[in-house]
């Protein structure tokens, strides 16, 4: 079960410079734990000790912000695409 994850420039220091990594998991939490085994430091950049997402990071499953799905417990399916983006404004 492979899920592709897009990583923003600011976090590529944890992925050896790669803009895309793959991992597996039935939930976003499992995916992040799996990614951490090969990309040390990524988990800490995304979630705090209590498991909640950092305020200035947005994680999307199939383009939808997980804060409006199930947060860190958002269920994942094979073939889902996950993106990570820093919070930026417009206006």
């Amino acid at each position, binding site marked *: 079960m492979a899920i592709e994850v897009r990583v*923003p*420039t*600011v976090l590529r220091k944890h992925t050896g410079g790669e*803009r895309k990594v793959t991992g597996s998991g039935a939930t976003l939490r499992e995916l992040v734990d799996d990614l951490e085994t090969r990309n040390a430091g990524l988990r800490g*950049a995304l979630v705090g000790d209590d498991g909640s997402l*950092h*305020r*200035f*990071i947005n994680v*999307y499953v199939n*383009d*939808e*912000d997980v*804060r*409006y799905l199930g947060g860190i417990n958002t269920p994942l399916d094979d073939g889902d695409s996950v*993106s990570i*983006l*820093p*919070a*930026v*404004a*417009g*206006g």
Partner: protein
Amino acid sequence: MLAGDISQAVGDTPLVGLPSLSPPGYALYLKLEGHNPTGSVKDRVAKYLIESAERDGRLTPGSRVLEPTSGNTGIALAAICAPKGYKLTCVMPRNTSEERRALLALYGADIVFSPASEGSNGAVRVATELAADDPDVYMPFQYGNPANPQAHYETTGPEILRDLPTVNALVAGLGTGGTLTGAGRRLKEHDPAIKVFAAEPEYGDLVYGLRNLDEGFVPPVFDERVLDGRIKIDSRKALGATRDLVAAEGVFAGVSTGAALAVALRVCTPRRLPEGSNVVVVSPDGGWKYLSTGAYAAGDLEEIAARLQDTLWA
């Protein structure tokens, strides 16, 4: 419609049906904010920002206004400030369209550029530094000023409810969060069952070139609790929907209108909205200010979108 001056011609924009693009069982309506005096939704915000500062005595004749903006707010402020005699400095990321610079120059505003790689967050950073060094400027700060969502709470929201009392969902772009927070809150007070969805622009890597995550920014005026969903739309999808709007409905709108339309089409499913729902999509501006970007030129859509992805379009 008779207006005593240009500031009184702000708002009361048309809400037009999209019969060709509405999915079966749903009715989409587009609120054409491009019909405001300077051609964007930001005329509402600029008017509220300036008038509230005048009431509070924070703006006096001869004052200089300083504001970070990706363009539309700057142009709207320029039109309000020029006849009142306020000087204006806009801090704007370098990767904004030529038309924005030309219009600001026409209104006599000064432009300070912030690095393209920092997006709007960089404009906020530079403007905050400039304002801290200069006690004589007034920074309205759309990202943190309650007058921004208030403009939408008192004007955009009520106009939607007046024109379409049976509205079931609102979709708008996410920039400062002002439109979604203000209009969304007003609609939910009217009927808590109304759903509110954000269309978030997704750019190329350049715009997310932060050096560390502490440079991330969530505008203080944005109340995330008003949303029922937040969906990102890349330049390719936004551009495709913007062109569909021209071809199918004859509406020439800016790229972020395409993004909002794409989100509206995505949420028109029974899982999210019951069939029969009326969905209002906010079109923040017309397409005029993006012509120079090549967004509407002939050619391969993928290539055009690739060129556009590092230009701020919201």
